[in-house]
């Protein structure tokens, strides 16, 4: 076992020289995850780290965010790792896994796998979580994201997501689908990035998908985001 650990550490040390670490701190007026507020319509602060090994295609990262679940404050810890490969100047694909847990709310911890294809600024991804928010059923989520450079540092972006849960939904008397949309403008002045967007959701109630209850949270929201990278 010790040998394995030493070998992994040596490998990481060897890769260190080629790795690129990026840190970023963000403030959002409402932390919306797939259209659902995880901060109970309140502001949230986030800290994230991305680790890239561009020569090999591997990447990993983590994020911490304050959240408010079931009317209680908590911290979200998220980690992910994956592989991205550039097929040509326009196309690239990726695949990876992501794990999320919440302090004091272990019953919501879940893992999911994803794969995606990017064409220039257009990215499509499909996620599969066998036990979404530990609600006992599998969920598929598909998303399409696009952004477009405007004049100077301005850009516009849009997102559409579609979520489908497995299992019996009869008890909720609702459909098994949930969609979310987001559109906004951004202003990138490295290392700062500002975003203002409008987000909305459609479909069955959040509870049908295992999301923590956020009393009073709206389905539509304006979201302001400010981030600083280093």
């Amino acid at each position, binding site marked *: 076992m010790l040998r394995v650990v030493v070998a992994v550490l040596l490998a990481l040390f060897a890769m260190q020289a080629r790795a690129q670490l990026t840190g970023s701190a963000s403030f959002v007026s409402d932390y919306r995850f797939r259209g659902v507020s995880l901060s109970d319509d309140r502001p949230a602060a986030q800290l994230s780290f991305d680790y890239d090994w561009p020569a090999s295609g591997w990447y990993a990262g983590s994020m911490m965010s304050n959240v408010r679940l079931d009317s209680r404050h908590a911290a979200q810890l998220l980690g992910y790792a994956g592989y991205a490969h550039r097929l040509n100047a326009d196309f690239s694909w990726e695949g*990876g896994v992501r794990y999320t847990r919440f302090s004091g709310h272990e019953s919501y911890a879940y893992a999911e796998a994803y794969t995606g294809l990017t064409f220039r600024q257009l990215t499509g991804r499909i996620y599969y979580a066998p036990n979404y928010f530990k609600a006992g059923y599998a969920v598929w989520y598909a998303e399409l994201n696009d952004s477009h450079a405007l004049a100077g540092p301005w*850009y516009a972006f849009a997102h559409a997501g579609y979520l489908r849960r497995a299992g019996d939904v009869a008890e909720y008397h609702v459909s098994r689908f949930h969609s979310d949309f987001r559109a906004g403008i951004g202003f990138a002045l490295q290392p700062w990035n500002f975003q203002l967007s409008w987000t909305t959701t459609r479909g069955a109630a959040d509870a049908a998908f295992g999301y923590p209850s956020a009393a009073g949270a709206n389905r539509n929201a304006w979201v302001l985001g400010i981030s600083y990278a*280093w």
Partner: protein
Amino acid sequence: MMRAWLLAAVFFALGPCAAALAETQQPTQVLVMLRAAAPHLHAADGYVASYTTSPAETAHKRIARALARQYGLQLVDSWPMPALGLDCFVMQLAPGTSASDVTQLLSHDTRVESAEPRLAFHTLAKDDPLYPLQPTARQWHLAELHALATGRNVKVAEVDSGVDTTNPDLTGQVIEQRNFVDDGGYRAELHGTEVAGIIVAREGNGVGIVGIAPQARLLALRACWQLADGSATSACDSFTLAKALQYALEKHVQVINLSLTGPNDRLLQRLLDAALARHITVVSAVDDNAADGGFPASHPGVLAVASEHSPIQVAGAWLAPAEDIPTTQPGPRWNLVNGSSFAAAEVSGLAALLRELSPDITLTQLHDALHARTALGLASMRPMSIDACAALAQVSRRCTCDCALAHASLGRPRR
């Protein structure tokens, strides 16, 4: 006063040499390329896959600053090259250090994808315009070509010095002007304006000339700068050219005109390969002073264009009129110009006509259309004249210039 006039005269006489002189001087800056990861999921990326808004750009700058400190360089500038999956950083050498030594050291650094000296380029106009009038439009039967195509909706990127759109022949013909030379405003200059007129000058407006592709949409990308007032001689470098080429790729142009030359450069070669992989027609002027036509004309896949009276014979190059070409100048002025720069501009215009008729035309098909083959159907190893009528007739499969298709099949250039 007399002394001032003499100095001015010497300055203008030496103008054309100044750019070439710059190419013989040792580079004082290096270009350092860092790998950019392929677009991928981030924890908090806000749904934006844009390269320039990615936080990774900040990480690259931090690495570049560390490299600069380690190798005694000064970080000057940077530019993302998403077409190559790279970030390009410009670093100033310390006095007395050799660019080749530093690039060699940098190339062995695991953080660095590649490094190269920032090289000088120059445009290929000549400053002796007083020759008998020989209109290009007449040789290529322009009016008849325009009955078939005018370059409508074809995007042409002119990578050159600045273009003056106040000339009546260019007003409304340029869809975008961008400056890649410095942080200052866009400047109107001679060479860029002259090349632009040949490609897209307005047709039927009662003044001036007719461009080869008057309805093409020109992107005037200023990557070169005029060395002296009144002289078309302009200089560029590998970084300004790379930025302009990257922008042309982002804008999905169909044709790129490069009426300039310089030494072989790896970064530019890679950007040209990226352009060619996207089926962009890249046209470059042949340098009469280089046996292989100079770079980028010598790059495989690039349409190299030489003057009909070029003293050298570059295999695979196309010949086009390059002497006494009437064209636009800044302000409401026109003049006759000479040089392979303008032959290349004509072929870029012709490429725009062909791309209008056949938007997905491949490089091979384009060569076949332009190529007058020998009687045995073999490709000639000599520079070849272009039969514009036959090229359009072959691509459109329609009759033009009293049915040039017949001539095309016989492989005889028309005059």
